[in-house]
Every structure is written in C-alpha cells, then in structure tokens.
C-alpha cells in the first residue's frame, strides 16, 4: 500500500507546483496590466498636452483653436465615468480640425509648426499603440482568469477583473 501513498503524495506535489506556477502567471499578468494602463494614461496626457499646445500656438483660426482647447481640457479633467468619452471626443475634435492633409502640409511650413504637428502625430500614434497593447494584456488576463483552475482555487486573489479601454483613437493625417 505504500506505493499508493507515494503516488498520491507525488500527484499532490505536482498539482501544488502547477497551482503555484499558474498563480505566478496570473500575478505577472496583473502586474503587466497595471504597467500598460499607466502607460496608456501617460500617452493620453501627452496627446491632450500636444493638442493644447497646438491650440495655443496661434497657427489655426480661433474657432478651431477653441474646439481643440475645449476638447483637450475635458480630456485632461479626468472626470470619473466619462473618461473614455472625453478622449474619444478629443479624437473627433482633432480629426474635425485637422482633417485636410493639404492644408496641414501648408501649415507645417510655418516656423515651428512642423515640430508641433510631429509631436501631436507622435502622441496620437502612441495612444493607438498603447491602447492596443493594454487591451492585449487585458484579454490574456481575462482568458487566464476564466480557466476553471484559476476560478476554483481563487488564484487571482482579490485583484479586480481588468477591462479593456474602448475609445475612438482615430487621428488626423499629421504624420508623413
């Protein structure tokens, strides 16, 4: 009967290793979600900052400057709840104000303008990238947390189930 005991102990040990390894995976993913989330926040701040700077630069007519200023302020206000809406509105305002590639090319010839547009385009692209990368990690995390092993043994502890960030991140043709 001793061999049966040995087998049971070995199986339990192997299961323990599997549990701890999976818990490590869950933990690492949560950590990565947090990093990706703060990365996305930073890129969004960067983008609204670049939009504000462009609005204040006096390159665009007052009407468009005001539209950009307003949208960028709302995005930065971080009012709880409608954050994603405010950022989507900023995207819409940028596309509406800077939608004409020929005019943008014209504006970029003015002194200092190229730099501003490059920074804005860079920030817009990075928002798009950061959101994709964030949502990728969230998807992996949610799929791992959906596994029976993780649910039954509560390997995720008390960590909140992360959710994807859904916002319109389309951007005007300000990059070459």
């Amino acid at each position, binding site marked *: 009967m001793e061999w049966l005991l040995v087998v049971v102990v070995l199986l339990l040990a192997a299961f323990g290793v599997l549990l701890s390894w999976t818990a490590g*995976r869950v933990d*690492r*993913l949560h950590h*990565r979600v947090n*990093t*990706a989330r*703060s*990365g996305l926040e*930073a*890129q969004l701040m960067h983008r609204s900052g670049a939009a504000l700077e462009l609005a204040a630069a006096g390159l665009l007519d007052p009407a468009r400057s005001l539209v950009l200023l307003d949208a960028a302020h709302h995005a930065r206000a971080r009012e709880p709840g409608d954050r994603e809406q405010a950022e989507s509105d900023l995207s819409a305002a940028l596309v509406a104000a800077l939608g004409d590639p020929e005019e943008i090319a014209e504006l970029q010839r003015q002194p200092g303008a190229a730099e501003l547009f490059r920074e804005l385009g*860079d920030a817009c*692209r*990075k928002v*798009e*990238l*950061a959101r*994709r*990368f964030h*949502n*990728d*990690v969230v*998807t*992996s995390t949610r*799929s*791992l947390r959906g596994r029976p092993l993780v649910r039954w043994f509560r390997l995720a502890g008390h960590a909140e189930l992360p959710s994807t960030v859904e916002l319109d991140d389309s951007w005007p043709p300000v990059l*070459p």
Partner: protein
Amino acid sequence: MRVGLVCPYSLDVPGGVQNHTRDLSEALIDLGHEVSLIAPADEDDQLPGYVVPAGRAVPVPYNGSVARLAFGPLSAARVRRWLSDGRFDVLHIHEPAVPSVSLLALWAAEGPIVGTFHSAMLRSRAMLAASSILRPSMEKLSARIAVSEHARATLVQHFGGEPVIIPNGLYVDRFAATRPSPRWASPGGTLVFLGRIDEPRKGLATLLEAFPAIIRSRPGVHLYVAGRGDVSAAREMVPREGVGSVTFLGLVDDATRADLLASADLYVAPNLGGESFGIILVEAMAAGAPVLASDLPAFRRVLDGGELGTLFPTGDPAALSRAAVDLLEDDVRRGRVRKAAAVAVRRYDWSALSADIVRVYQTIRAGAGLVGEEA
C-alpha cells in the same frame, strides 16, 4: 536606447526574417540606438559587428519545410548570457513562436518585450496543439506586431487580441537609385521572374506556359529567371517556342537583382499561394518595374487593388499572357503605374517604419524596468 534583437534563423541563409532583422538593426543604429542582434551562427562566421552568434543551426523539419534552427543547452546558455550582459531597455523578438533562439529568449526573459510575427503559414492542427504550450510564453509579450494582414489574422486566430500591423521594410533609395542596364534590354520587352524555380507555389510553371503566346504577339521578348533551384529541370519546362528567349541566371546577388528589376519592362509574380506580404513586389515597384501579379489577397493589398500594378486570375496562363501583351504594348500605362508605385512604396521605407517601431519601444518602456532574466 539599448535594443536586443532576436532572429531565429541563420543569417547566412537568405530569407525575409533575416533581411528584416538585419535592416532593422542598421536602421536603429542610424537613429542612434545601441543594437545587439542574436542569431544562430558559428563563432568563426563573418558577421557584422552588432551580431552575436548563438551557436550552429541545424536543419530541422518544422511547419511544413526544413528550417535551420538553433536550440539545445549551448544556445540556451548563450541566450541567457546575452540577456544578462545586454541590460537592454527593450527586447525585440522576431517570430517568438519559432523553436529556436527566439523561443529560448522569450522563455528566459522578463520585462518590456516586443514580438514581431512574420509567418502566415502556420499549420492549423499542429498550431492548435502548440498554442496551449506557447500561451504562457506569449503572455510575456508587451507588444505584438504583425508584418501583414495575413500574419495578423493567424495570430488573432490562435491567441486573440489586437496585434498592430507594421509592414516589412526596405531601403527604397537603394532600389530607386538603380538605373536600367543595356545588358538586360530586349527589343520585344524584358520580363523578369525572381524566386525559387523548383518551388511550385512560386508559379514559374504558369509563366512558362503563358510564354509562347507572349512571344507570338511580341517577338524579341526575353524572360530572365533568377532564383535558386535545379536549372536543368526548370529548362525542361520551357516550351519549344521559348527556348532561345528564356535565360536562367541562378541565384543572383542583391546588386544584380536591383539592376535586373530596374531594367524590367514587366516584373511577373505568378505565385499560386503561400505569400503573406510580398516584399518582392515592393522591391520591384521601388526599382521602377511595372508589376503583373496573380490575384492573391496579399498581392492585391500591396498593389492597392490593382492601382499600383496589374492583377490576373491566379494560375491562369491565358490571362497572364493577355495581360502581359496588353501591358507591353501600352507604354503610357506602364509609365503611369511606375510613377504611382514609386510614390506609394515610400510607406515601406525603413525611415518611416523604424520611426514607428521606435514608437512601439517607447510606448511599452513607459513605467517598465530593464529587460532581465526571469526569476
């Protein structure tokens, strides 16, 4: 930034991934970054200064063909040492799912890691089994890039999520600077085919079958075939009428290839399938060769639905010969396509792509530490 790049295939064998990693290394160095590229190679191979050899590659059947891969304890130890010595800000692994240096690096590393997926030809049944083995490693990637819509679709199918697309690049100016050479000029027009001649999917057979009809309408036309493979076997496929009008060049070097493309009146890509992106079409366009290609989804996308070249029904020799003759007779149309293509290929230039890849690095670096070994 200190960037560690990983290429899973031997650099001494030509291939899309090898060219991509080498060109990207050079583009990043030009931008002022520090780059180290690890790839399977012997210590005594002639290698550029930024390459670190990971040990000899051995030919292994994998994913439907024979690949030269490096794995085993020696390569694993070299990859670990490279990681700990490198102190990279970002690790960029090409083909992270290929069981070579790439998978070893992904296994061993932790931190900001980018994975670029090139292949679209993963076998579904095997991949389904593989994806459960690979999933824990794939979770370590902070950013996933696909080089084509096809590679992206494969990736989404197996692992889900939303990878970004950054296409394959080339140095457009190197091709654009090449001038047509009288060496390749022919009175009826010069046709060029590049690619392995004994690989049926490259479609040389379709082109050779179409060739007699082209000669009948355009006497004096000449076809140059450049690519690896058994020339004598390929010569047997040439129809009797075409014997004097086809030249097999074997494998040519990069300079000859650019030269040949610049001199082509028509670059023909009669592929039957298996293409994920079609970098060769972009090269032809950059060199100024009007493109006639089979109507594969990847080619249709590169040619912008036929705006930047001409498409014909895949595997149809009669349609190929009709389209080729029409194009050879129409100098105006060829000139127009040539001009449009020269502008459009700029988006594949390394200067644009490397800037975008650096944005990916900057995005995932925010808030993350250095690349290290997994604890």
